[in-house]
């Protein structure tokens, strides 16, 4: 058996690697427990406070919570890994387009949704749709679809955290978490690079428990507090980590020049993506307009003016987080091509893109304290999304499923809060179990999840701008989205034979050279418009209620 010398870099030294980073992460978790406990003291006990913080959140906390919610493992672990594979174009695919599209969704849809929530007392997105389309049944149709789309989003967080912590803790516990040697497709046997690391199941268990703790007791108010704290942590630690890695590589210029020398293709987009592929990605960020957890954050706003800071600062915040990640990703590609960075391989022998960030941190950050602080920042980004999603699914279960089904007088306010809490625990358990058995690319899984929400976005947009939109049109759009999304995802991930619709290109499933979201959105819009025009318009009372002004 031969062992590659680089494995020492990843923590395969004879002596266990320093556990200081892990201790720092544990301290961070304890700080979150404390913050959760303090914020839960402010919980007013009502379901309105649990689900929308009694609409009391001001501009800064709204920005931090909305931005923290949209940045998950996808943004840090996923973007670095994707830049490693696809180069600088990754930023344009998701980050710069999100600066335009996310803010557009907040401005054109979010403020209107907030106004209806404020006026009519909505707590969830589905409550709005039920009233807007005069249909209880529509809620029952949308509830499982929205929850079903949130689960992959939760998985993105848990898988990303497991991969990152696995890489960064490699070699810390060689006795407790020993792993068998790996056999590469070439037949070469190597020591497992993740030997002695904290396993993904344990990371997932711990972060789920911490987030559950503060969400369980304080609801969305605790989530907003924790998001604000965690967003500040991951933005600061992300920048510090970036500068330290750059320093470890001999400076910004030296790092980029290495990529120019060994992996120049990552500095442009030619050969890695086509303009049509790039353009079709612009549809993916539309998903924020339909995220139920973002809708819930919008409803926490004290006033419409609270949105102003979020709309303007969101593109800048995205830039602050994504530019360093993309640079780290392309530097990693250069170093990998040169042979001075090894990334833990996948079973097929290719480097695991999800492990690129942890490999860079482990290799080029000398200080265990800094590794610990940076890792706390990565977990902060992941948990700041999980908490909002947890609260949201509890809220939807209570307000969109149980209460309409059993009657709103059937439960006391306190019982409603407990129903929400119970469903949160149930979904977290399901997601946790799936995360252990279904490791996949964080970026690609995120894109599939976002594509489903993007295709439902025309419903949200048309519901506040198009009076002629009907319930039947919405049902047709939901069905068209579900059918096309299911077919394409099966073809991309489940179909082991010849693909029915598209083909894989540089790790992406494309149909006619563009992202599947293009066709899913198209099917959704056609169904929405044609069926609405062919069916009876909503009543005048409903139109008056939801189109109260000329604007």
């Amino acid at each position, binding site marked *: 058996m031969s062992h590659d010398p680089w494995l020492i870099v990843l923590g395969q030294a004879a002596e266990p690697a320093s556990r200081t980073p892990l201790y720092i992460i544990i301290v961070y978790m304890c700080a979150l427990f404390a913050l959760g406990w303090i914020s839960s003291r402010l919980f007013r006990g009502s379901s309105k406070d649990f689900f929308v913080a009694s609409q009391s959140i001001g501009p800064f906390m709204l920005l931090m919570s909305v931005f923290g919610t949209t940045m998950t493992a996808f943004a840090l672990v996923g973007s670095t890994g994707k830049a490693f594979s696809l180069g600088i174009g990754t930023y*344009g695919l998701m980050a710069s387009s999100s600066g335009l599209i996310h803010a557009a969704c907040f401005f054109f849809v979010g403020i209107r949704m907030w106004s209806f929530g404020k006026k009519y007392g909505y707590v969830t997105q589905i409550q709005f749709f039920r009233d807007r389309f005069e249909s209880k049944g529509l809620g029952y149709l949308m509830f499982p679809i929205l929850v079903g789309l949130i689960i992959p989003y939760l998985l993105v967080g848990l898988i990303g955290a497991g991969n990152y912590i696995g890489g960064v803790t490699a070699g810390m516990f060689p006795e407790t978490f020993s792993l068998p040697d790996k056999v590469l497709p070439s037949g070469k046997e190597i020591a497992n690079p993740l030997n002695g690391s904290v396993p993904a199941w344990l990371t997932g268990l711990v972060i789920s428990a911490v987030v559950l703790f503060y969400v369980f007791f304080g609801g969305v108010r605790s989530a907003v507090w924790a998001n604000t704290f965690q967003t500040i942590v991951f933005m600061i630690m992300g920048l510090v980590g970036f500068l330290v890695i750059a320093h470890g590589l001999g400076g910004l*210029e030296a790092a980029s020049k290495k990529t120019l020398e060994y992996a120049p293709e990552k*500095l442009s987009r030619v050969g890695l993506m086509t303009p049509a592929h790039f353009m079709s990605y612009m549809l993916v960020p539309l998903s924020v307009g339909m995220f139920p957890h973002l809708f819930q954050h919008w409803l926490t706003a004290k006033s419409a003016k609270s949105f102003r800071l979020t709309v*303007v600062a969101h593109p800048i915040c995205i830039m602050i987080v994504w530019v360093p990640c993309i640079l780290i990703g392309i530097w990693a590609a250069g170093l990998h091509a040169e042979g001075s960075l090894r990334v833990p391989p996948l079973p097929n022998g290719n480097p695991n893109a999800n492990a690129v960030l942890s490999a860079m941190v482990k290799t080029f950050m000398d200080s265990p304290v800094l590794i610990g602080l940076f890792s706390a920042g990565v977990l902060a980004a992941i948990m700041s999304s999980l908490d909002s999603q947890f609260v949201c699914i509890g809220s939807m279960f209570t*307000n969109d499923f149980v209460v309409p089904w059993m009657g709103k007088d059937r439960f006391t306010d306190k019982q409603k809060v407990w129903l929400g809490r119970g469903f949160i625990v149930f979904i977290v358990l399901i997601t946790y179990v799936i995360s252990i058995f279904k490791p996949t690319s964080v970026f690609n899984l995120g894109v599939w999840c976002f594509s489903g929400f993007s295709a439902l976005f025309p419903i949200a947009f048309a519901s506040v701008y198009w009076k002629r939109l009907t319930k039947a049109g919405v049902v047709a759009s939901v069905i068209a989205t579900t059918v096309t999304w299911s077919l394409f995802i099966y073809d991309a991930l489940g179909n082991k034979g010849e693909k029915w619709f598209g083909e894989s290109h540089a790790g992406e499933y494309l149909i006619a050279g563009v992202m599947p979201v293009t066709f899913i959105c198209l099917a959704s819009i056609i169904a929405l418009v044609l069926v609405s025009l062919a069916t009876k318009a909503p009543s005048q009372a409903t139109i008056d209620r939801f189109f109260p002004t000329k604007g």
Partner: protein
Amino acid sequence: MKKFVYALVILMAIIHQDIWWWDNKRLIFDFMPLGLFYHALFSCMAAGLWALAIKWAWPSDIEEWAEAEGEQGGEQ
């Protein structure tokens, strides 16, 4: 001015597709790839655009309607 803001949003969506330096590998400031630099700049421009939108196209009518005393509670 609202229409001007909406036109700017469309213009931004168009200039996001920067095919003109698709294969340019030049490093700005010796470390920042040109394509990445352009899109970082695009993010700053997007922030500027939304600042203009708030100034010139803010939906005050919706805001006033929502914050006025009136009906509460939908069918749900």
